């Protein structure tokens, strides 16, 4: 058994070294993951997340960046556990996106 992610030892040729600073959304993904996995919540462990992106298919795995994989696996696993649906998440995203577009909507009501 060798998973598509288990590529250690493959010949890769020369490796270009590029500094990739953390993007804000990537930090948010890690923050949410930590909250879901902490000792009081235990909603989703890091190993469940790993199983998620190690089994969602080589295509998706290779297409996505490190944090995008984690994000997608988080959504898949929360959906599998029946905690959220992708539709609910998309609705919420649309709602929040509107709020951010309209600064007045972000102000607390008087």
């Amino acid at each position: 058994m060798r998973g598509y992610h288990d590529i250690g030892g493959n010949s890769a040729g020369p490796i270009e070294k590029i500094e990739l600073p953390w993007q804000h959304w990537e930090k948010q993904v890690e923050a949410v993951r930590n909250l879901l996995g902490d000792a009081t919540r235990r909603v989703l462990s890091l190993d469940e997340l790993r199983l998620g992106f190690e089994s969602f298919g080589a295509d998706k795995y290779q297409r996505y960046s490190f944090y995008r994989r984690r994000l997608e696996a988080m959504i898949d696993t929360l959906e599998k556990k029946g905690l959220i649906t992708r539709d609910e998440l998309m609705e919420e995203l649309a709602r929040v996106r509107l709020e951010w577009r309209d600064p007045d909507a972000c102000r607390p009501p008087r």
Partner: protein
Amino acid sequence: MTAAPIPVRYRVGDPVAVLDLGKAGHVRTPFYVRNRRGEIAQFCGYFLNPEALSLGDTSGPLVPLYRVRFAMKDLWPGEARSDRDFLYMEIYDHWLRPAPGPHA
């Protein structure tokens, strides 16, 4: 967690070989060290098996985790490597077997 911990089987310096358990799912032993020999460098403590954790099973038992030392020359025989280059990897007890005798 109810089950008793899996007993520690190895001591520092013991020669071991990595098993190829052929497991599907989430495992933490990469392909390139399977069937390779190394020696126990350190006992890291007891941990829940990540293979079970990946399925949401936290019932145990706790499994000993070891830091295993591999000679880079053994891992990558075709390449020029110093005798002093080693790779250390944490491996769970159930992926190891005793491997006395000279390195293959």
